C-alpha cells in the first residue's frame, strides 16, 4: 500500500461502479428470463464490490455513498442513465464494460508503485470480473442485434441513444497515468467490431456534446440522477449517525 491515495481517481471510478451497480439492482425481479436475474445481479454485485474498495481508499464508504449530494458525485453520465428496456441496459453495459476492461487492464499492467499503486491491486482483481461483464454484454449485443427484426430495431435505437455519453469515458482522470487517446481508439475498435458482428451500424452521431463532455466527472449530471440518489440515500439520511 502506498501512502498516497489517488483520491480523484478512486472517487471517479468508485462512483462509476456504485451508480451502475445501483441501476442494475433496479432490475431485480424484472429481468426477461431467470438466468438474467442471476447475471445482472452478479454484475451489480461485482461492481458494488469494486465501489466499496475504491470509496474506502478515499474515506468512509457509506458517508461517501449516502451523504454526498449529486453535484459531488464524479461518475460519468453514461452509468446513471435509466435502465430503459433490456436493449438500453445491454448497450450501456457494452459501452461501459469495454471501457472498464481496457482501463483496468492498463492499470493492472502498470504495476506496483507510484500514485496508481493502490489502484493496481483493485484493477488486477476487477479486470477478471469486467472481462466477464464485457463477454455478457457482447453476447447479448449479438443476440439482440442479430435476433429478430424487433430486437434489432431496439438494440439499434439503444446504441444510438447512449452514444453521446461515450465521449466522456475518455476525459483524463486526475491521478491516472493512462494514454486516453489510445484507450479511446481501442474502445472504438472493440465496440465497432461487436456492433458489426451484431449486424448493427456504428452510430454516427457525436460522442460528446457541449454539455455531456466530461460533465459527470465535474459533478454535472443528468436529471434522473438526483432522483436515483434520493431513493438510494433516503433511509440512511433519515437516521443520522445510526449504524446498520
Amino acid at each position, binding site marked *: 500500500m502506498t501512502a498516497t491515495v489517488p483520491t480523484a481517481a478512486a472517487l471517479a471510478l468508485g462512483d462509476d461502479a*456504485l451508480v451502475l451497480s445501483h441501476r442494475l*439492482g433496479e432490475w431485480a425481479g424484472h*429481468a426477461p428470463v*431467470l438466468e438474467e436475474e*442471476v447475471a445482472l445481479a452478479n454484475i451489480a454485485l461485482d461492481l*458494488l464490490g469494486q465501489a466499496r474498495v475504491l470509496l474506502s481508499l478515499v474515506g468512509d464508504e457509506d458517508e461517501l455513498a449516502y451523504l454526498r449530494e449529486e453535484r459531488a458525485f464524479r461518475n460519468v453520465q453514461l452509468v446513471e442513465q435509466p435502465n430503459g428496456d433490456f436493449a438500453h441496459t445491454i448497450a450501456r453495459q457494452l459501452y461501459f464494460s469495454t471501457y472498464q476492461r481496457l482501463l483496468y487492464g492498463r492499470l493492472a499492467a502498470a504495476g506496483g508503485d507510484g500514485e496508481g499503486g493502490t489502484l493496481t491491486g483493485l484493477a488486477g482483481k476487477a479486470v477478471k470480473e469486467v472481462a466477464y461483464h464485457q463477454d455478457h454484454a457482447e453476447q447479448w449485443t449479438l443476440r*439482440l442485434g*442479430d435476433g429478430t427484426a424487433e430486437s434489432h430495431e431496439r438494440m439499434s435505437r439503444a446504441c444510438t441513444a447512449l452514444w453521446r455519453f461515450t465521449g466522456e469515458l475518455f476525459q483524463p482522470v486526475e491521478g491516472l497515468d493512462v494514454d486516453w487517446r489510445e484507450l479511446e481508439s481501442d474502445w472504438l475498435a472493440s465496440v465497432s467490431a461487436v456492433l458489426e458482428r451484431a449486424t448493427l451500424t456504428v452510430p454516427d452521431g457525436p460522442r460528446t456534446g457541449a454539455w455531456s463532455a466530461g460533465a459527470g466527472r465535474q459533478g454535472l449530471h443528468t436529471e434522473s440522477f438526483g432522483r436515483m440518489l434520493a431513493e438510494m440515500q433516503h433511509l440512511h439520511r433519515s437516521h443520522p449517525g*445510526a449504524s*446498520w
Partner: protein
Amino acid sequence: MTAVTADTQEAYQAAFDAAVAADERIEPRDWMPEAYRATLVRQIAQHAHSEIIGMQPEANWITRAPSLRRKAILMAKVQDEAGHGLYLYSAAETLGTGRDELLDKLHTGRQKYSSIFNYPTLTWADVGAIGWLVDGAAITNQVPLCRCSYGPYARAMVRICKEESFHQRQGYESLLALSRGTPEQHAMAQDAVNRWWWPSLMMFGPPDDESSHSEQSMAWKIKRHSNDELRQRFVDICVPQAEALGLSLPDPDLRWNEERGHYDFGPIDWTEFWDVLKGNGPCNEQRITQRRRAHEDGAWVREAAAAYAAKHGEATA
C-alpha cells in the same frame, strides 16, 4: 412399446414401495405412481415459484438499503433466490414437465406460491425479519426435504438449505444491529417482527387435521413431519432467539409448557391464511402482475435469443 399388463404394473408398484420403505431414492427414470409424480410436480413447482415471487418483497429494498454492506448482502440473497428457482425448475423438469409450462401456470394462477410473499415489506427492518423468520421457517420445512424420497428434489434441497441458512443468519444479524441501534431502529425491528411473526407460522400450512396432502406425502416420504410438528419446532427455536435479539413476539399466550417440553402458543388466524391463499392478501395482485409483466416485457428478448440460436446453429436453452 409393449402394453403394461396389470401384473407388471403391480410389480412396478411393489418395487417402488420397497424402495421407498428402504429409504432409497427414486430417480427420474424409475417407475413411479402417477399420483406421486403429480404431487411432486405440484410441490416442486410451487417451491420454485415461491423462490421467484419471493425475490420481490426483498428486491423492493435493494435500491434503499441503508449501507453498502447491507446492499451487497441483499443483492446476493436475491440473486441466490433466482438460482434456487432455477435448481427447482430443473428438478421439476426431471418429472417430465417444462419450465415454460410451469411459469405459465404460475402466471395464470393455476399453480400457487408461498402465501408469505403476499405480505408487503414496509420498512428496512422487514428485510431482516424475513431473513430471520421467513427463511427460518423455510429451513425448518426444507431440512427434512433433504431426505425426501425423490432424488433430484432431495439434492436440490441440500444445496438450497446451505445458502438459506446463511441468509437466515444474515437476517438475524441485521435485526440484531437494529435492535441494539437507536430507539427508532429498535422500534422498527419490533414492528417488523410483530407483522411477520404470525404469517411465518402460517408458512407450515394448515393444521394437521385440515391438511389434504399430508398423509399421502408422508407415506411416500416426500414429507417427513407433519405441519404442526414443524410449526412447534419452529416456535421452540424462535423464542430463545427473540430473547437474544431483545425483541418480543406478538403472542400473549406464548409460554413454556414444562409438561410438554415445548412452548404453547396462541391460536393462528386461519381465516386470514385462507383469505391470502385465495388471492386476497395485501400483495397477491401486485406480485403476480409484476411477474407477468417481467415475463411479457421480456418476450422479445427471449425471441431474439431463440432466433439468433436458430441462425447460428446453437442449441436453444
